[in-house]
């Protein structure tokens, strides 16, 4: 990665990482000890179960609910489901789901040789799904070679969000032709709180478009067409967050999405999803992303939309360190860690730009090999579009000076309208001007070690270490810290929040071929 880095004290950096590891380890153990309805549904999706009943309830939901009613999910659904298939209760998963929905199948947790047979059948079926994800990853690598990659960093990231997939496609293609390297399709408001993934192409959403397997397929095909035409592989992004994170990650892998929003704590803090549910779902979804060669984007920018960007700068660093630990533990490599941060310091503050530079350089220096995602101002965009355009220019300048890897293009009409065609065009001109004028400025930019920028970066790092120590001072570490509001104002107790009833502690006989196949070998 390009970009100047600050000479941070290696002892402090090591300490920060080791504290993050200490805070994260008990969470990983917790995740390993539990399963969720969404992890089980994702497993069935990997085995090829698709579609929904006439009311729109996905078959994976019907089948998991039926198994759960008979046996619980403590043993996983794989043993009961493939036991039923091996016994000949149905010819395939869809038929089994249909029968289970009307109550004409009884499930049991098989033992002995029946269990062995069920395990082998399940492993074969789920293994086929994993192999399909592997094939989609190789296909991406091949297409990037054939069509070429984005010609420069930062990659230019643009958002599309009409609610109608058939409107999104031409808009995304137009954005790609205008210079976007990455297209993100924003999801409909509230999808993160649905405990199922909607089916089929969708034409109506609230301020965004539903994430469905068919919408993923349609948009990837549209961008493939444009990528071939442009001679540049255009990446597609969606959101693996909320109650169905493991399923959406699996669908992303199956449909060759390239980047996914995937934060370890966002759902807990901002959506009041149960912490255990989130951490279990997180780990599974990250394992899928690791396997699929998907770059994750973490959500640290969100901290700065609720807290002050100067006072809370260290919470961003702490979250990045935790996200890094959880990601690597799940098998993701440095090149897949799109750690997030944002340009949200109050522009009326003296030296606001220098503070932004300090924070961005700290992130670049701490994570030199990660494709950092740089997020534009939103909080201080007021509706004065002229001032907003200037702010976005300075945002782009920090991006250039600190070697950011993924640049979400800021719109001067942020907080006014969803971007117009002209807003997007003006915003891209802004990015191009800055990158053309000083894209290589980082070669000349070496802030002195005793200057304002380096001092501020050291201060934020020191505060991050303090916060991590504070987290570890809690009896139950990170879980207690989340419960008592250490992160922002949100108090999220371990036994509260949405989706807790979909969590179960694994029994000794628990079996899930997906988690076995996805577990990183080390």
């Amino acid at each position, binding site marked *: 990665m390009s970009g100047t880095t600050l000479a941070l004290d290696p002892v402090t950096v090591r300490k920060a990482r080791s504290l993050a590891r200490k805070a994260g380890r008990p969470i990983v153990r917790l995740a390993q000890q539990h399963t969720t309805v969404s992890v089980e549904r994702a497993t069935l999706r990997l085995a090829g179960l698709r579609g929904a009943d006439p009311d729109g309830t996905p078959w994976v939901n019907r089948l998991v609910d039926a198994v759960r009613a008979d046996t619980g999910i403590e043993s996983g659904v794989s043993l009961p489901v493939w036991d039923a298939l091996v016994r000949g209760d149905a010819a395939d998963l869809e038929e089994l789901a249909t029968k289970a929905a009307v109550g004409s199948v009884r499930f049991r947790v098989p033992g002995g040789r029946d269990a062995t047979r069920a395990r082998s059948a399940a492993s074969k079926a789920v293994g086929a799904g994993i192999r399909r994800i592997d094939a989609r990853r190789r296909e991406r690598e091949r297409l990037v070679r054939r069509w070429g990659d984005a010609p420069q960093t930062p990659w230019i990231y643009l958002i599309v969000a009409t609610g109608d997939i058939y409107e999104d496609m031409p808009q995304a293609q137009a954005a790609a032709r205008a210079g976007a390297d990455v297209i993100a399709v924003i999801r409909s*408001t*509230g999808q993160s709180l649905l405990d199922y993934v909607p089916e089929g192409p969708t034409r109506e959403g609230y301020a965004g478009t539903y994430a469905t397997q068919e919408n993923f397929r349609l948009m990837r095909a549209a961008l493939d067409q444009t990528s071939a035409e442009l001679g540049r592989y255009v990446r597609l992004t969606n959101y693996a967050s909320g109650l169905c994170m493991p399923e959406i990650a699996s669908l992303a892998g199956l449909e060759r999405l390239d980047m996914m929003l995937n934060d370890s704590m966002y759902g807990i803090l901002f959506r009041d999803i149960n912490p255990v549910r989130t951490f279990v779902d997180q780990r599974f979804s990250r394992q899928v992303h690791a396997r699929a060669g998907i770059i994750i984007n973490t959500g640290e920018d969100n901290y700065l939309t609720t807290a002050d960007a100067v006072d809370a700068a260290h919470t961003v660093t702490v979250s990045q360190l935790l996200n890094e630990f959880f990601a690597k533990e799940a098998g993701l490599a440095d090149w897949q860690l799109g750690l997030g941060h944002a340009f949200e310091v109050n522009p009326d503050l003296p030296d606001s730009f220098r503070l932004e530079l300090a924070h961005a350089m700290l992130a670049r220096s701490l994570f030199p090999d990660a494709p950092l995602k740089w997020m534009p101002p939103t909080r201080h965009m007021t509706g004065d579009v002229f001032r907003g355009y200037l702010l976005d220019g300075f945002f782009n300048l920090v991006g250039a000076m600190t070697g950011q890897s993924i640049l979400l293009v800021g719109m001067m009409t942020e907080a006014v309208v969803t971007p117009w065609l002209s807003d997007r065009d003006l915003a891209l001109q802004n990015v191009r001007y800055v990158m053309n004028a000083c894209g290589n400025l980082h070669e000349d930019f070496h802030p002195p070690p005793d200057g304002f920028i380096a001092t501020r970066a050291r201060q934020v790092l020191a505060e991050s270490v303090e916060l991590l120590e504070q987290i570890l001072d809690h009896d139950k570490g990170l879980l207690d810290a989340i419960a008592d509001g250490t992160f922002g*104002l949100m108090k999220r107790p371990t036994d509260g929040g949405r989706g807790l009833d979909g969590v179960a502690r694994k029994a000794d006989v628990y079996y899930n071929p997906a988690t076995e196949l996805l577990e990183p070998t080390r």
Partner: protein
Amino acid sequence: MSSSDLSPTVLRPYGDTTGDGMVQLSFTLPMPHSKLAEGAATQLAVTMGIDPALVVHAKAMGPAHTFFVVYGRVNHLVDVSQVRIVERDYALLSPKEINLAVRKRLRRRLTVVGGCIGTDAHTVGIDAILNVKGFAGEKGLEYYRELRVVNLGAQVSVPQLVARAQAERADAVLVSQVVTQRDAHLFNTKEMSAAFREAYPAATRPLLIVGGPRFDEAMATDLGVDRVFSRGTTPGEVASYLVHSLVTARPVREESRGSNV
């Protein structure tokens, strides 16, 4: 017009000279950039009352669109004495002002209990108002330090809602109804407000607020609630209204209640 010592009520836009009437505007036409496109932009501006209209910038955006910046003199006037505005009956406050008002005047946190009643499983509305994530760039009520939010989620029964409101000593109850059939949202709301009237003496009943895309904001009295919010309502509006009704407008009662806590 009034005499010269009063400021004039009839105004023209101001560029750099009183009365010059200068304005700027920008827009996009769905046609390729050409002489014809620039002529079309000028003609549109003239139709809008800008004459002379000067197209100072025209740029192709892709093969089929052109972006224009136009400057010119607008020949319309505005008579300020004839301008009618609809005042909101409560002031829109910032999160800081809201927290301060609650802290100073109520002297305890204000408790809000919310949920979706009936069979409606769509928590989009209640979550947009209550979740930190919020809506339309505004943070939800959970973000306000001085508001204590209890979000019961979907499919809450009316007795559950009343019981929880009592247990939490709710100051306000927020109910969302998004997807409804055959006016179920009206029926549910009436049932809810009747239950609260039955369970509480009039003086201590929490503030009842309903919201959803199908509601008409003028129906509050019919429904037996204090306020109805319709489509597009933001968390800041709801929070401002809560402060207006529970803190600013009823200081005496609230302060006596606050001192008991």
